[in-house]
């Protein structure tokens, strides 16, 4: 039995948008196991980003529990959450969020400088196939390249978990597949548990498990009998 990294129990999130109360999550239960690649699938507004943000220690829950390796994130202090993000979890976002004043290598170094057990920035960039773009600034990189720098940055600390929020959302399909290949390789070679959020059904093919979210609830959890490789995907 693989270690269960995340235990999510009855997770509820209500936030206010002006005058309106929005129920983003309505009692979600799920797990994420070591080495697993999970795709969280759902239309926009289904609550998948909220779930990922809470799991990543970026947002607080209204009720329920999220435990990372037995430690309740929902009870953690601001300082503990910062440490959690610093040492254990890697993020990839739709809009890359690179530091525009730093080169690819330096953007990765931003993380390796503060991490406990990092790999070298060069190695991280090699893993995403950007060895020849080390000294380029974000403004000199294509969208797909920028996203791969973001992935290199996320994995460079050797995180136990990689959380990706619509990593291909801003990319065309060809570039998107390159990015997914990078994620697949990390998952395979480093064994990093990976959760990918997407509304793109075709991406679900590369997952071990697919969690369908709808209207703040988990509608269905399915296992892929045959896991596709990222290069086989198309949309």
């Amino acid at each position, binding site marked *: 039995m693989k270690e269960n990294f995340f235990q999510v129990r009855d997770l509820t999130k209500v936030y206010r948008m002006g005058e309106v109360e929005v129920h983003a999550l309505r009692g979600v239960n799920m797990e994420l196991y070591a080495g697993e690649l999970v795709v969280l699938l759902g239309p926009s507004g289904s609550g998948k980003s909220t779930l990922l943000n809470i799991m990543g220690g*970026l947002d607080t829950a209204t009720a329920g529990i999220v435990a990372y390796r037995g430690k309740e994130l929902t009870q953690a202090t601001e300082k503990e959450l910062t440490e959690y*993000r610093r040492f254990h979890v890697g*993020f990839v976002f739709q809009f890359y*969020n690179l530091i525009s*004043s*730093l*080169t690819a290598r330096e953007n990765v170094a931003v993380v390796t*400088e503060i991490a406990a057990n990092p790999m070298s920035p060069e190695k991280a960039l090699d893993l995403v196939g950007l060895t020849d773009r080390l000294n380029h600034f974000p*403004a000199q990189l294509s969208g797909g390249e920028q996203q791969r720098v973001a992935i290199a940055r996320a994995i460079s600390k050797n995180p136990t978990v990689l959380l990706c929020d619509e990593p291909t959302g801003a990319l065309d399909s060809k570039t998107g597949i390159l990015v997914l290949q990078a994620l697949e390789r990390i998952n395979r070679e480093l064994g990093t548990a990976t959760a990918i959020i997407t509304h793109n059904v075709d991406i679900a093919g590369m997952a071990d498990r697919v969690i369908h979210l709808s209207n703040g609830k988990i509608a269905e959890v399915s296992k892929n009998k045959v896991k596709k490789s990222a290069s086989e995907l198309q949309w």
Partner: protein
Amino acid sequence: MKALHLKLWREIWRMKGQVFAISMVVMSGVATFILFISTMHSLDYTRSKFYRDYNFADVFVNLKRAPDSLKDKIQNIPGVRQLETRVSAQAKIDIQGFSENVTGKIVSIPDDGHPLLNRLYIRQGRLPDPFKDNEVVINETFAQAHGFKLGDQLAAVINGKWKRLTITGIALSPEFVLVMKIGAMTPDFKRFGILWMSRKAISKAYDMDGAFNDVVLSLYAGVKEGDVIRELDNMLGPYGGFGAYGRKNQMSHRLLSEEMKQLRTSSRIYPVIFICVAAFLLNVVMSRIINTQREQIAILKAFGYNDFAVGVHYAQMVIMIIAAGVVAGIAAGIWLGKMMGNMYMEFYRFPVFIYTLHPEVLIAAVSVSVLSALAGTMHSLWKAARQPPAEAMRPEAPAKYRVTLIEKTGIGPWLTQPARIIARNMERKPIRTFLSIVGIAVSCATMVSSGFFKDSVDFMVKAQYVFSQKEDMTISFIEPTSYRALYELKQTPGIHDAEAFRSVPVKLKFGHRSYKTVINGIEPEGRLHLVLDTNFQSIPLPESGILLTDYLGKILGVQVGDVLTVETLEGAKAIRQVPVVAMAKQYLGAMGYMNLNALNRLMQEGNAISGAYLVTDSPYREKLFRSFVEMPRVADVFIRQNEINNIYEVMAKSMLYFTFIAMLMACSIAFGVVYNSARISLSERSRELSSLRVLGYTRGEIAYILLGELAIITLAAIPLGFFIGYWLCAYVANALASDLFRVPLIIELKTYTIAAAVVIFSAVFSGWIVRRKLDHLDLVEVLKTKE
């Protein structure tokens, strides 16, 4: 346009912190502009009104004694309009309960009522009764300094005779707007007063019946003052005339003019600084606002608003941002101006200080602020109005960065990524970085220039009273006295040491230039009163020849080795050629120094002395002083410590006021620049900083990236501020230099320290506010959207 107006209000409300910071700077600029210019105008107006209403004379002259019959001859000098002959004298005053030396200048008023020229403004009471010889009118500052009321009495030693006088009135005169004793550094209202007595009474006391020793006259418009003065000097020469002079050399008028010159200098510097800083801040803020509103601009234009309307919209925003500052600045300027007027009235006495604010000053203040603000934002406005809608709707291209110069120096590999971010940000916008540094430097410079005032006075006091004058008491005789008097003084118990001096009024001529002053003859081997060179080393007095204070050398255009024509204005009125042997450093006055013996030779007098420098034993000082006051031969007694105390007493108030204003201004600029820079960096980089937070950076670590840049800017600004401050002080010192005094360019370490501390404090305070905002960054929100 209503919806647009609503947008305007809401946006301004949203930026209230920044608007406040800009308003502070605009307010400071407008306030100082109005303060200096309106005070200058008010002083000018108040003075000319007082001069006009009370018939201030144009030409003044003192002489030994001339018969009344000469009056008609003077009246016949072409150009003379009105003329008044007077009797004036110096007297020692004895005030019960005040055991220090007080001297008074007694001036006669005609027996038939008010003087024709230099008429008195009677604040209280009445003029003296011409039939009583013991009635006196005194000037207001003197009365206030001692709390005199009508009917109070004081005693005066008049022509050697002790006389009790009754105060019948308290008055002001255009001749004595500022009452200051000749040779003093600052006014001393306690120890020097003006006493007006009836002509009859003074004439009797001084044996001046049918004669006069003082003439004032007014001229017809367009008459050349110099011609009248020449004529007058020729006429009065045989009667012991000391040389006539015009208004510009009249003490009170002269000092007032110097004050106005100072105001004019200040009004040229400070408002300009503020307005430039405000324009820069607006530029930075507006270009940021317009950047964040690209989409909105595009939408407005897509809806059919034209370039002009969009431009007007943002111009309105600029004007509204500065409007509050302008209004507050006008109010503050008027308030400070009136306060400054009241402060002036403590020294410069007018019947009433008429605060005048010319509408054109207001118009200038408003239009300068608005125009400079618009000019500062013109570029951004133009960009906003010109953008094609489609382009504006597209997100802005990612910022371009380069490896910085500093990294290329070789330290690159040692920089942490946050340090790299700081360095690249600063280098990417070099102009903005540079102007931020200059802005903060200017606030530092403002503080330096305010502290400079005190430092230079301290230094002047030190140079004058510590390095140069070692005596603790100085006495002067009514007229030149035999050298024997010095031996007598030396034998007096309590007098430790005594050295004689001789002082002679002269006119110095070199080529076509001439200057009226005194030559001080001092003892060649003297230890008490030293003439110093630029290194504060004593210059030995040569057997013959003259030393000039360096500024006098400049006025006359002479150099060491040149030969001056010395025309003595006393005694035999000899005219001699004297070589200049050295230049002396002195911050007060412009005069010559000679060996006492050489001066006496030049005067063709025996061993005469005008007074003595004394070193006294402190237990005897009081007694000695009393005995000098009672000695008829002694005209005046100076006590060094009193002089020093008085300087600081007089200056304390105005110094406090100016330091307070400078501090306010410096803080508002430093806060305005730092806070706005920080806010703009925050809004430009909140996304980046949030990303770092997500990657596990702590609040402290991201604050370091944002505030580190500001810290570097602030720290870089401080030395530049010292430099600009020094330059500003040099400019002020140079602008204020006159034959009355030169401001030494001395800035103490303490002044620099305080300036730096004020700037750092303002920066830390703004940083603290931004840090609090940083702690509330919404990580999720920022990541969701694309910039």
